[in-house]
């Protein structure tokens, strides 16, 4: 019991930020690669 508060949870925070950073980075790289292939 934690009295209705959440203790810890950092792995979830890192997972959310890590996933966002990875997805945005990979999509950005894919855009530049697609643009280079078309030019």
């Amino acid at each position, binding site marked *: 019991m934690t009295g209705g508060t959440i203790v810890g949870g950092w792995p979830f925070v890192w997972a959310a*930020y890590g996933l966002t950073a990875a997805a945005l980075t990979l999509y950005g790289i894919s*855009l530049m690669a697609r*643009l280079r292939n*078309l030019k």
Partner: protein
Amino acid sequence: MVNNRFPKLPYVLLLLGIVCLAAGSYLGLFVAPPEHFMGDVQRIMYVHVPTAWNAMLAMTFALVCALLYLFTSDWKWDARMEGGIEVGVLLAFLLCCQGAIWAKPTWGVWWDWDPRLTTTAVLLFAFLGILALRRFVDDPVKRAVWSSVATIIAYVDVPIVYFSVKWWNSLHQAQSSPATVSKSFHLPLRLNAFGILFVMTAFIMLRARIASLRLEQELAPPPVLDGAMGELA
């Protein structure tokens, strides 16, 4: 057809977005205090809420482009619509994943068929369907018209997503904005919102450029064969 008046602008916006996101995330992760009940898990808000705002914005941009294409038949709006839809789908996908990650420690489940979550999932799959439709239609005119109409229909879900927490009983909390959260949360929330806005704008510009180049290739007249020219001569 490719609007290249400001070729470096997407890269400048991308850089600006990365700087804002780095600063906002640093403040959100290490400087802002933990929330009273959710503790450190609430720090997901600094990335989740800006993602939600910008996903809606990307889809609204796609809607405006769809309407402008139907009224003007100008190909640049079709290319921009494609950019808006694809980036909107990326952000809506991230939104669902971040939401699931936040839901597990707070609600005890990764997913719930709650009105906000369900309508967001419907939105994601509706716009994903429009991208699939664009892949399967070869005729550029039919593709542009059909996907414009589909975008207008799919967009009906955007206000439903927004108001779902007000209209129905929902596990999901009501909308977060600077007015509804503590002042100490404002700066990281705003920095990340502008960060994702700049990155999203850069992505839409680059994706629209790709769509324009592909359209140019599709609409270009077929090359005249030497043999045919010889016969004509």
